[in-house]
C-alpha cells in the first residue's frame, strides 16, 4: 500500500449531513486508495451508513466535497455514483426477491434493444460472471427469494464486478448471513482485493474488520475520531476506541 505515490480513488472532504435538528455527520473527511480495504467503524448512529450512502448517491450531503480519481464529482443519485464506478453492497441484501438472478444483476441496466430486454444475453452473462467468481447457484431462473442469503449477497457482488466497479462500498455485507454464507462472501472480498478495487468496509464485527481491512476510520456521534492502519492496534484497542470515541493515548491526532 503505497499511499504516497498513488492518488486516492476517492476523497470525501468536510462532509456534513443533518437530519432535522440532528447532526449525522460533522465535517468528516476520508479517503480510499486503489487495492485498499478501509474499515469504517463506530456504534449505531455514529454516521457510518450516512457517510457511505452519500458516496453511493442514496443521500446528498449538506456540505462538503467529493473527489473521484482526483476530479471533483457531483453525486446526486445512485446513477451518478454508478457512472463513476461506485457500487454498493447493502446489508439488507438489496435485491428484488420476486425477480431472478439475471434480472437482479442487470437491474436498472438491462441489456436491451430499443427498450426490449434481451433475457438470453443477460442469463448467459450472469452465468459467466458468477462462474468466474466461483459462485454456485443451481437455478438462475428461480426467484432470488428461493436462494440462501449468501447466494443473494454473491449476486450483489457479482453485479458490482460485472459492471467493473472501481470503488466498492460494503455496508455490513455479512450481517444478515450465517457462518458458512459469511465464508462465501469473505472469499469474494479477498478475490476483489487482488483485482485492485478500493473497498469501504462497514462492519460491527471486529474480527471481520481485523481480517479484511488495511486501514480504519473510527466515527462517533457523526465526528471522525481516529484513523490508522488496522494493524497499528490490537482488536481490544480498536473496540475501546469505538466505545470511548477517543483515540488511544499513544496515537497521533486524526488527520483532517
Amino acid at each position: 500500500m503505497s499511499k504516497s505515490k498513488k492518488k486516492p480513488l476517492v476523497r470525501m472532504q468536510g462532509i456534513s449531513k443533518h437530519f432535522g435538528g440532528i447532526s449525522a455527520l460533522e465535517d468528516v473527511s476520508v479517503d480510499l486508495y486503489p487495492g485498499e480495504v478501509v474499515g469504517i467503524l463506530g456504534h449505531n448512529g455514529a454516521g457510518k451508513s450516512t457517510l457511505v450512502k452519500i458516496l453511493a448517491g442514496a443521500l446528498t450531503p449538506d456540505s462538503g466535497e467529493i473527489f473521484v480519481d482526483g476530479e471533483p464529482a457531483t453525486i446526486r443519485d445512485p446513477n451518478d455514483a454508478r457512472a463513476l464506478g461506485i457500487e454498493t453492497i447493502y446489508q439488507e441484501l438489496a435485491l428484488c426477491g420476486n425477480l431472478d438472478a439475471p434480472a437482479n444483476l442487470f437491474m436498472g441496466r438491462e441489456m436491451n434493444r430499443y427498450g426490449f430486454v434481451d433475457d438470453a444475453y443477460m442469463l448467459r452473462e450472469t452465468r459467466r460472471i458468477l462462474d468466474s467468481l466461483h459462485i454456485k447457484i443451481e437455478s438462475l431462473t428461480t426467484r432470488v427469494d428461493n436462494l440462501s442469503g449468501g447466494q443473494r449477497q454473491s449476486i450483489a457482488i457479482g453485479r458490482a464486478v460485472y459492471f467493473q466497479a472501481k470503488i466498492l462500498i460494503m455496508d455490513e455485507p455479512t450481517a444478515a448471513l450465517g457462518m458458512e454464507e459469511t465464508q462465501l462472501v469473505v472469499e469474494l472480498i479477498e478475490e476483489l482485493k487482488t483485482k485492485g478495487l478500493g473497498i469501504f468496509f462497514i462492519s460491527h464485527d471486529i474480527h471481520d474488520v481485523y481480517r479484511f481491512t488495511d486501514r480504519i476510520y473510527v466515527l462517533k456521534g457523526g465526528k471522525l475520531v481516529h484513523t490508522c492502519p488496522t494493524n497499528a492496534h490490537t482488536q481490544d484497542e480498536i473496540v475501546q476506541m469505538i466505545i470511548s470515541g477517543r483515540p488511544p493515548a499513544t496515537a497521533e491526532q486524526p488527520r483532517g
Partner: protein
Amino acid sequence: MGETIARLKSYPLTWIVGVTILMAIVISMLSPHFLTVGNLTNLLKQVAIVAVLAGGQTLVILSGGIDLSSGSILALSAVTIGFLIENGYPPLLATFAGIVVGTLCGLINGIIIAKGRIPPFIATLGMMGIARGLALVITKGVSYMVLVPFFDIIGNGKLLGLPVPIVIVIVVYAALHIVLRRTVFGRHIYAIGGNEHVSRLEGIRVDHHKILIYTISGFLAAIAALIMVGRLASTPPHVARGAELEAIAAVIIGGTSFAGGIGAVETTLIGALIMAMITNALNILGVSSFWQQVFIGIVIIVAVWLDNLKGRR
C-alpha cells in the same frame, strides 16, 4: 426469452384456465343457452369494458399501487365525448378530447403519487371523487344521447369478423403483454412492485415509471369509455360506478399479488371472464341479480385463498 418472468406467472395461468373451462362445462350442462354463439359473443362484449380497465389496473397493482379512480375517469371521458357531440363537434374530435381528458387524469394521479408522495389509495380516492364530480358538473346530471355512426361501429360493429369491443380488448392485452414481458419498462414495473426501495437504489427511475403507469391506466379508462359510449349510445354521468372495483377483482382473481411484483396480464383477462361468466350464468339460470354480487364476492376470496395455499411450503 421470457425465462425471467415465466416462473413468476406460470402458476396462476394453469389453474385459472382449468377453473374457467370447468365452470363453462357445468354452466352449459345446467342451461343449453350458455354455449351459443350469441350468448358467448354477448358475454365477451360485456366483459370488454371491465377488461380494458383491468388491463391498466394490472400494471398499477403489479407496481405495488392501486387505482380507485378508473371508473370515474371512464365516466368523465364518456361525458366529455357526449358533451362535445351534443354541441355539434365532429365525433373524431370528441373521441380525441375524451382520450386526452382520461389520459390527463391518469397523469395527474401519477404526478400526485410520485412527486407529491401521496399514497396511491388516497390520491386515486381523491381523483375518483374529482372525476365523477366533474362529470356531473359538465352534464348537470343529465345523460346525452350519442347517435352517430362512428360510435355505433365501436359499440356494435365488426372488424375482421369480430365485434369491435373484442378487437379492442385483444389489441390492449397483446400490447400490455409485450410491455410486461419484453420491455425494460415492464421489467421495472415488477422490480418496483417487488421492492421499491431497492429499485431506487439500483437507479430505476421509479417516479418517472409510476407517472407513466397511472397515465396508462387513465388512457385505458378513456379507451373503455369509447366502448361504453358505443354500447350505450348515451353518456349517463353515473356510468361505470364501481367499475374500478370490478377491475381490481378481475386482477386479483387472475392471480396477481395485491402486494405487487407477482402476476401477469393474461390472467387478468381470464379473471374478468370468470366474473362475467358468473353473472351471465346466473342470468340465464334465472337467479336473482342480487345473488350475483354474493357469488362474485365468494370467488374473490376463494381465489386469493387458493393462491395463498400454493404459496405455503
